[in-house]
């Protein structure tokens, strides 16, 4: 055990390198910038490449190329930068090119962007949401595994707090040897054999086989693969004291840490309050949320936006239990998603009101 004081951004970068990521490209933007800084110093040390791309469009393009060449690769930004990458993220799904996309978001206003995708067409991206640096290592490794398994972009979503909170953490685990290049990936060697490989969002049927690109057939195949991915990824959530809870909080990421503190304190007073923390935002843990809500008097969705995840909670719970949103917090003038009213005290007061209502 050798723990040290470390910033969340370094934990994220370190987790990517440990997971075998050997190519990273990004464009600086708060609160993502420090991840890029750490990758710029960490990757060359293990023989990898980090490029300070001239735009987010080029960053994701570079990752497209590196991933197609068989490398574990990642890019990232905050939600604004990810808006610029959406075309490539959507089409990478159709091309079967998997990589990891970090969103060090400003607050939680990018929930829809992450879970619905801001790009075009029928595609989905798995989304993992660590609630603190200690969970980052496992979830980043999972994200790369999912990107490999499903050959699809995978989003890891954090925020300003995750990126900039310093924690005491064990950073001594082994750096994994990068996995070998997958069989589908390109290395140039099949050229001239009469069966040169093709990786394309338009499909992989070649004219020499008597058919050209058939987009209808390709998109149908992509839809089938997407259904398999949807069914093949187990939704994950963490439950805290939900069995007998009158008030069930639902929160992810940083907001779940505040909620967890409130639940712990109120439980010590004997109040029946619990927490569901979605870890996979897509696929959303609908059954787990519905199960936790069952028997409660009210479900409260605590999120640092104007109310986005509450839609998924409504889909999960239906109308059997009242659902309220604890959201719409004003952010400070930095616009980095820091909401001064997000405090344990304020949430405690809100939950007490809900408990009083539940008892009334």
């Amino acid at each position: 055990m050798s723990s040290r004081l470390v910033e969340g951004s370094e934990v994220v970068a370190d987790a990517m390198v440990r997971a075998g990521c050997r190519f990273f490209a990004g464009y600086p933007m708060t609160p993502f910038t420090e991840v890029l800084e750490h990758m710029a110093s960490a990757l060359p040390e293990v023989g990898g490449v980090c490029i300070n791309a001239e735009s987010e469009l080029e960053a994701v393009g570079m990752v497209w190329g590196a991933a197609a060449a068989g490398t574990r690769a990642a890019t990232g930004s905050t939600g604004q930068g990810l808006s610029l990458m959406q075309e490539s993220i959507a089409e990478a799904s159709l091309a079967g090119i998997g990589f990891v996309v970090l969103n060090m978001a400003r607050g939680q206003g990018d929930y829809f962007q992450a879970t619905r995708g801001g790009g075009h067409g029928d595609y989905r991206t798995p989304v993992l949401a660590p609630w603190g640096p200690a969970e980052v290592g496992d979830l980043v490794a999972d994200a790369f595994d999912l990107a490999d398994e499903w050959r699809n972009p995978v989003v890891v979503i954090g925020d300003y707090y995750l990126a900039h909170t310093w924690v005491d953490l064990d950073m001594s685990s082994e750096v994994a040897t990068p996995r070998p290049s997958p069989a589908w990936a390109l290395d140039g060697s099949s050229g001239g054999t009469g069966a040169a490989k093709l990786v394309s969002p338009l499909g992989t049927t070649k004219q020499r086989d008597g058919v050209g690109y058939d987009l209808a057939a390709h998109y149908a195949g992509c839809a089938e693969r997407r259904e398999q991915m949807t069914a093949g990824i187990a939704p994950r959530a963490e439950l805290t004291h939900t069995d007998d809870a009158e008030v069930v909080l639902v929160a992810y990421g940083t907001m779940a840490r505040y909620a967890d503190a409130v639940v712990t304190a109120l439980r010590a007073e004997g109040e029946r309050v619990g927490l569901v923390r979605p870890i996979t935002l897509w696929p959303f843990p609908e059954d787990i949320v519905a199960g936790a809500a069952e028997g409660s008097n009210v479900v409260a969705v605590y999120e640092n936006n104007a109310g986005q995840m509450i839609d998924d909670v409504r889909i999960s719970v239906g109308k059997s239990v009242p659902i309220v949103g604890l959201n719409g917090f004003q952010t400070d003038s930095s616009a980095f998603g820091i909401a001064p009213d997000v405090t344990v005290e304020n949430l405690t007061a809100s939950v007490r009101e809900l408990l009083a209502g539940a008892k009334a």
Partner: protein
Amino acid sequence: MTERRPVGLEVRSEVVLPTNVAPEDANLVADFTPNLIDVGEHHLCPGCGEPIAIRAVMDAIAVLGLADKSMAVFGIGCSTAFSNNLDVEVLQALHGRAPSVATGVIRMRPELAVFTIQGDGDMGNEGLQEVLHAAARGENIVCIMLNNGVFGETGGHLTVTTTIGQRTKNTIEGRDADKHGHPMRIAELIAQIDGVGYVARGAVNDAGNVARTKRMVVEAFASQQAGNGLSFVEILTMCPTGWFIPTEDAPDYLAETIAGTHAVGVLRQEQSEQ
């Protein structure tokens, strides 16, 4: 092997020599089978210059023995018709994005001859900054721009290289600098960037220019193999459909109109340090 098929030839006499097989008593003196192109028959418009340009590129790869150590990164446009028709590995990129995609490939596989194929709309309009940045970073790739001065795939629309007076579907009376701005000379733009190994502009409107263009592409790949940084070859290609002229007039139209603004020649050639 390239499959050759007789396509739509009207039979005018009793005796027709088949074009897809050699006569039994023939003595092969030269093989004109295109290198590394799977199916010789293409589905682009009659008179299109792009198949000739693609063939020049594939010939260069064959001549240099790079077939099993090269990778093509295609953009989106008419030439995408060849991205699933080559016997080299192909990575399809989105419109405008080929240079950044090629960057990701070359950084992970620096031993490869990585090259991009884009049209003028793809490289010049949608993603101009990509090739400029790749050039300045000194990415060791070959970038090919097929320049016909129009968005051919959409039916002949204005691009950044459309010449003054050229008719397109959205400059129907001809490009007027006062109304539609001026054409950009992409090769000249790239030639002045430090970190660039080779820059040339060829054309495929006559046999002489086709031969010169093939030499340019060979030079570009040789420069890439020597590690001189980004090589760029712009190839002027005919688009009679998008130029709204008879097919047989297109080569002369290219020489008189397009090449008048985009002059053919070698613009930059760094000497190898080897």
